[in-house]
């Protein structure tokens, strides 16, 4: 009898640690953030219910709309990163001496970490004489140096370049694995049908790695919507001149941890949840269509 009860309990005992950690660190925060979003809360005093006030405030908050807009603009990263990663994967998908060295090299930005890379980028884009300004002057594109990082219209594109530079190596590996699964005879058939080099990739490689493309599109667009590190590091935690580089997660962080508006930050978090949820549903739809 005792043994029987024990064997009945077994699956739950295996699951218990995970469920406990999940409840405390994921489910509870989800419920709490929903509750806080209807309160005014500064952490020191207990939360005071204010109804929909935080959400009404969102509607009239120019910085929130700017942040939302910036997060969506950031999605431009996704198609660019996919195109570059596929191009690089195609270039690497051949047997040439030393090819594995290149493969390893392109992967280094993936593991270096955003702070170190952000510091390097601040050097590169320095306004009083970084190498990017030097290059542009030398090419004759500009005639006086640009103060990139304090120029409101440049901060977001520079952050996006950093995201792309950091991420290409990662997605390249995914595409490389997918390319290596395409049977060689498909390429032979394409060659017999008179496809040239580029047509071959367009008609065989791209359709062959379509599942990987969908997957990368989802992963990279979700992380683009939630970008924080690049903005934080490149603007020295200011969000840029006139909040020009502020994104949803950056504004959430600023409201919660710089301005102690926890209730208001929670309302931003709820908007973030709805947006990422919609993206995930969209993603499931896309994946389903793929399987048809």
């Amino acid at each position, binding site marked *: 009898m005792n043994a029987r009860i024990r064997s009945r309990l077994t699956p739950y005992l295996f699951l218990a640690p995970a469920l406990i*950690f999940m409840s405390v660190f994921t489910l509870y925060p989800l419920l709490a953030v929903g509750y806080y979003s209807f309160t005014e809360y500064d952490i020191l005093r207990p939360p005071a219910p204010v109804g929909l006030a935080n959400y009404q405030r969102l509607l009239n908050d120019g910085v929130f709309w700017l942040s939302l807009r910036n997060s969506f603009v950031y999605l431009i990263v996704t198609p660019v990163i996919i195109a570059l990663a596929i191009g690089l994967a195609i270039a690497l998908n051949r047997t040439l001496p030393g090819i594995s060295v290149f493969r390893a090299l392109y992967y280094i930005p993936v593991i270096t970490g955003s702070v170190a890379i952000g510091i390097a980028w601040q050097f590169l884009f320095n306004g009083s004489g970084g190498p990017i300004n030097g290059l542009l002057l030398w090419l004759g594109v500009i005639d006086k140096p640009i103060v990139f990082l304090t120029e409101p219209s440049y901060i977001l594109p520079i952050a996006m370049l950093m995201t792309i530079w950091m991420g290409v190596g990662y997605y390249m590996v995914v595409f490389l694995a997918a390319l290596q699964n395409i049977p060689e005879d498909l390429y032979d058939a394409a060659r017999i049908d008179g496809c040239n080099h580029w047509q071959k990739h367009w008609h065989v490689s791209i359709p062959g790695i379509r599942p990987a493309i969908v997957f990368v599109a989802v992963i990279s667009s979700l992380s683009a919507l939630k970008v924080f590190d690049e903005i934080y590091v490149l603007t020295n935690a200011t969000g840029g001149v006139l909040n020009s580089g502020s994104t949803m997660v950056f504004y959430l962080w600023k409201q919660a941890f710089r301005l102690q508006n926890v209730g208001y930050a929670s309302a931003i978090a709820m908007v973030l949840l709805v947006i990422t949820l919609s993206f995930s549903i969209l993603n499931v739809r896309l994946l389903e269509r793929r399987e048809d």
Partner: protein
Amino acid sequence: MVTAVKPRADAKRAPKALGSAIGWYMVLGIASIITVFPFFWLVTTALKGPGDAVFSLPPQWLPNEPTLNNFARVWQQIAVWRFFLNSLFVALCTVVLNITVSALAAYPLAKMHFPGRELIFYSLLATLIVPLELTYVPGYILAVQVFRYDDTLWSLIFPNVFSAFNIFLLRQAYQAVPNDLIDAARIDGAGELRIWAQIVVPTVRPSLVTAAVFTAVTSWNALLWPSLMLRTREIYTLPVGLNTLRGMFSADFRLIAAGTIIAIIPILIAFVFAQRYFVSGLSGAVKG
């Protein structure tokens, strides 16, 4: 497979193949320059002496009076090695706890039938779409008011023990373990914990490595949450320490560059020696 089929065509293509190889090397070379340049700039800046201009137009590419002094000064003024040890401690503890908890939870989901299984499965699935950033606000309040572990390294470990992602990754791997193997062990009277530890877990080692590498790199590079939790400099992790180093040495960019290089070196060394695991681990996690 294909090479043996058409030797004549291959022979004809030989000069063209050489030309295309050169073309590909050029593409790969340009991509390499773009990849390496930011690191090159950090190194050349870190090696510059007091007489060399950090920023100038046209830029000064190489130091005229190269020196290792900048590295020595950073090393003396900031205990970068301590940041490194803190990061290592956090990453190791997170990996051990996370993988143990995930490997346990995945077992009944893959190999047992019990009431509530579907419910638990779908709850786990649902947590995958909760953005981590959303949990930071209540997580902060929990850390400060309930657990009171803010400003300790544990605050970086416990919130990252649960990962639905790793549970699903391992569940998928477990499903490939033959049921006969498990049933045979059950008939022999082995307990479930023993079956798990001695039969199931050892057979999914590649997936464990995948999950571990992904968890370790994520922990190693985390910035937002650690910078919320840590206030005492002695327990800073590398990203947090590096971020404050910028402020400390803002008068001399050579020192910032030197500190950044010191901070990058450990992960680069790890990458050189375990490249295979890094690449397959991180990309395997995407596919899983």
